[in-house]
């Protein structure tokens, strides 16, 4: 809990450090990416079920919000919740056949699913605007207070992120979290102790999709323009990279991974084209040399460092 309060204070105070400006805009994305990384981590890091199609759920949230508020003029807040429920339901139904698959096959199926969703975004031009995108999505507002600046969006997005993070932390430390890790370790043993693994996997898949959908809606409302390119296979891989770099099965790790991968391209401006190379290299190096991710790797390194200091002190 102390950890979480520290985290919250950092989130609240961070804008004071940066006096607004461009970095605030980047931090809004970092918040959205954190939600997505947590969503994927619940599925991949805890339940051990891979998804290479999460950008699709993110996109469904974004497009439902975009279309329902521009074409059908519905209340954005209502749409965000309805979209999340709809995406969750969609994932729930799809989850039964999809999560029957394991390992590589599951990866391929979710990848295929993500690509089908991406193709639909591109082809249903009447609604989505196709490859050229959908613009004019309204900004969110409460009464006359409009979330129209980066700093306002920052607090909106991070407010939701913090809540999702708290819920995810609670879940991961509960009996459900334990059951999810049990599925990861041995599905057959999990069933024998009475965990309905099939249902639980599908449920967590749906929850994960719901969170992704909320992230998508917030994304759509804060950037006001969306196009399919943001929701393709590459973004699914980027999410995977965030989760792996942060640490599989660590909620704070997802935050670290998302933050790092969102800020990285900004530091590498000018070397823009290199980011895909860097993602690839990071993903591989991380898995080979720090399989626990930053969340476990950094404390471990610090420990080793301390020990070696002690060792040289004694010598």
């Amino acid at each position, binding site marked *: 809990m102390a950890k979480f309060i520290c985290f919250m204070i950092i989130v609240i105070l961070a804008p004071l450090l940066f006096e607004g400006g461009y970095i605030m805009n980047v931090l809004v994305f970092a918040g959205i990416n954190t939600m997505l990384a947590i969503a994927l981590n619940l599925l*991949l890091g805890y339940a051990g079920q891979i998804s290479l199609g999460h950008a699709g759920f993110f996109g469904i949230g974004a497009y439902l919000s975009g279309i329902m508020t521009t074409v059908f003029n519905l209340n954005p807040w209502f749409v965000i919740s309805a979209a999340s429920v709809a995406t969750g339901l969609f994932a729930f139904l799809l989850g039964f056949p999809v999560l029957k698959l394991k390992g590589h096959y599951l990866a391929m199926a979710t990848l295929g699913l993500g690509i089908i969703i991406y193709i639909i975004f591109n082809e249903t031009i009447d609604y989505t605007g196709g490859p050229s995108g959908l613009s004019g999505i309204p900004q969110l507002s409460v009464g006359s207070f409009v979330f129209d600046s980066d700093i306002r969006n920052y607090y909106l997005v991070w407010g939701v992120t913090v809540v999702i993070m708290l819920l995810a932390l609670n879940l991961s430390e509960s009996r459900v979290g334990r059951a999810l890790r049990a599925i990861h370790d041995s599905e057959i043993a999990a069933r024998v102790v009475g965990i309905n693994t099939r249902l639980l996997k599908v449920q967590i898949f749906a929850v994960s999709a719901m969170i992704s959908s909320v992230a998508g809606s917030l994304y759509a409302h804060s950037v006001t323009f969306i196009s399919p390119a943001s929701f393709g296979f590459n973004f699914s891989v980027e999410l995977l990279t965030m989760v792996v770099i942060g640490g599989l099965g660590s909620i704070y790790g997802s935050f670290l991974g998302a933050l790092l991968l969102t800020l990285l391209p900004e530091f590498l401006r000018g070397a823009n084209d290199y980011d895909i190379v860097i993602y690839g290299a990071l993903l*591989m190096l991380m*898995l080979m040399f720090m399989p626990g991710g930053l969340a476990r790797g950094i404390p471990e390194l610090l420990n080793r460092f301390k020990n070696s200091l002690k060792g040289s002190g004694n010598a």
Partner: protein
Amino acid sequence: MQFDQLLQFFLSGVATGAIYALIGIGFSIIYNSTGIINFAQGEFVMLGGLLALSFTELLKLPLWAAIPCAIAVSTLVGALFERLAIRPLRRPTPINLVIITIGGSILIRGISMLIWGKDTHALPPFSGEEPVIIGGATVMPQHIWIVGITLLLISINKFYFFHTISGKAMRACAYNRRAAGLVGIDVRRMVLFSFIISSAFGSVAGIIVAPLTMTAYDVGVMLGLKGFCAAIIGGMSSGMATVAGGLLLGILESMGAGLISSGYKDAISFIILLLILFFRPQGLFGKSESERV
């Protein structure tokens, strides 16, 4: 609907299907000897095409010389990939293998983008562009090359697996790794071999398809997935079942694009992929097996 037109779709479907089959066989060879689905398989297809291009354009090699060089280089990349990424992996769980091969795949793709840029490139056709007429449908000579080379490679593949010592050893690994190790087969070498063979297959596919469809640093994703789809339809066999899977996919796609909508063409293969995975994960032609506890 004209018969000619159907025939046309059919014939071009056969050519693309042959490509998918070649890529798919690359997937199954690795899968059978290691249990890995190599998500980087498509990148070797891309490498084949782009390397052949560079050898002809930069080094001014004639096509017949450029092609073996391109295959050799991509095969080398495949071997390096196995040695540097797959073999050192400490905990080779399926998830870690998926992640590492995806990492490899985007790394190769990214480096290729730095080398060749984001433009699409075309490789010259192997023997002119004078179309051949077959029963009212026009066929490019390149189509014939594709089908011919695929048939040749598949026969060589079959010969290798059934009539050479190392091919038989590899089949033994596929059947039971532990037992193969016990009878003195160097399993790790066989794994390396399987990466070599399948990157060679992938690069050949990339080279023969490049004159037809153009190539770019990012073609590997789609082609790789279609190849995987072919292999899945074939039940991950490295033989005729996967060829049949590739042809089926190529033809359905070509018909679908012609008769329904070209925008959804790619969706067709993925829907087939999902349906097969959901309902017949053992492939269209295989029998199911129960898992042991």
